[in-house]
């Protein structure tokens, strides 16, 4: 089964094309150019959009806008290709790529997302002796290392929520329209029209 997976929740948008468990290709760029990567992945595999049989999409938490770009692309693709899909938490994918690590995603406003806690201040994390990965771990490296965390070098691949990891975590596919983003934080109720 040809599976297209992608995650746009963080600043690095990842994508992967898999034939069952075999990864045919993987790419990384930013949310707004996600479909360029997807197009390139298919070309490399000599496949056409219509060959895609299932979608896997990262559901965050991360940036609201950028997480939604991935979900909107997934909804558009599912509508046009009539395929099923699955949502996988970006935190789960990060954890799957780094054995025993605590995934930490930058939540802006001096907070991070970690499993089961919503947005918290990095100062409040109990990370002594733990391996921390993700863009939140990188951004707050100083804070977390001072608390005893071990953080791989900046260019370590374990900091990326690689879409092939999402694909491997899927157990069942369903309707893409029902895949919800994980916002993990209430919307800012500021009006736009003054």
């Amino acid at each position, binding site marked *: 089964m040809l599976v297209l997976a992608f995650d746009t929740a963080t600043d690095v948008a990842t994508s992967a094309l898999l034939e069952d468990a075999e990864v045919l290709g993987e790419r990384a760029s930013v949310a*707004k150019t996600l*479909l360029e990567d997807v197009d390139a992945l298919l070309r490399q595999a000599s496949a056409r959009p219509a060959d895609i049989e299932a979608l896997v999409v990262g559901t965050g938490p991360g940036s609201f806008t950028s997480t939604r770009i991935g*979900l*909107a692309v997934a909804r*558009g693709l599912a509508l046009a290709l009539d395929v099923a899909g699955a949502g996988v938490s970006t935190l789960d994918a990060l954890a799957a790529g780094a054995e025993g690590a605590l995934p930490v995603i930058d939540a802006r406003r001096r907070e991070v997302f970690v499993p089961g806690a919503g947005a918290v201040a990095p100062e409040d994390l109990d990370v002594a002796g733990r391996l921390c990965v993700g863009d939140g771990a990188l951004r707050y490296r100083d804070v977390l290392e001072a608390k005893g965390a071990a953080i791989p070098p900046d260019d370590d691949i374990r900091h990326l929520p690689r879409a092939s990891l999402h694909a491997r975590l899927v157990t069942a596919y369903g309707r893409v329209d029902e895949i919800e983003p994980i*916002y993990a934080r209430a919307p800012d109720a500021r009006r736009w029209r003054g």
Partner: protein
Amino acid sequence: MSTLILGIETSCDETAAAVVEADGVVQSSVVSSQADLHARYGGVVPEIASRRHLELVAPVVRAALEDAGVALDDVDRVGVTQGPGLVGALLVGLSAAKAIAWARGLPLVPVDHLRGHVATLYLAPDPLDPPFTCLLASGGHTLLLSVREREGYEVLGSTLDDAAGEAFDKGARLLGLGYPGGAEIDRLARDGDPEAYSFPVARVAGLDLSFSGLKTALLHAVRGLTETDLAARRADLAASYQRAIVRALAGRLRAAVERTGHETVAVVGGVAANSELRAALPDARFAPLELCTDNAAMIASAARFARAVEPPGYLALDAYPSAPL
């Protein structure tokens, strides 16, 4: 079957999709308004709007195809609003549209929302031919345009502060009315005396407009009233306030026509639904009531006159939040 355009619009608080034929016949137009959702905040909350767009975009597109009795196989191109608008909201529609078009190997037409409003006038059954002078008045924009061709327009003047629709919304809030304010004020004004209060409209050079002083004048008028007095004078205040906005818009439109010399005058945008404005400009062409507020039929219509981008040329396309100058 003739060429079919699927239009998608998510620039503010309406999630909309439509199917329009190349000759301008609207086969379907589905608009899912979020007005109720935003009413408790007295205006559009961008993050809430964006979240709702994501929930609605696929069902609304499916409904538009279904209402038109067509399948995606029958669609020849996809038109989508690229801007201006709320960037998070725009990106939902743009991302979905890019994905749909790419998956089907279709060209994508990025559409300017403001041109979309004007393109309402090019829809069947009675498409308008340029040249004409156009007032575009909505919650986000107030522009006077000289339209000489369907592909574009020249901006003659615009508001320096609040948009006309915004002035209605803010006035409605001061009067303790609901959101969106335009319809509420319009309804209440019918029972009021438009000459009861004299609200000044700022004189601005050229063909520009300004509504911020008007809102302040209303604030002062309301401030001096007790709750009981306000209840008694609310209709008069609404009528006088509406009269001031309508006078400003109609006056500027007449001045614009003096400059362009066009014989035809048109009004589009949410404020074009205002009954007093319609009465004040009996010779003007107004957008049909159901197409005054944001919709996707106007986006699909504009897509007929804008450049189509073939795949993969649009895959990196980004939204733009404000109107290019």
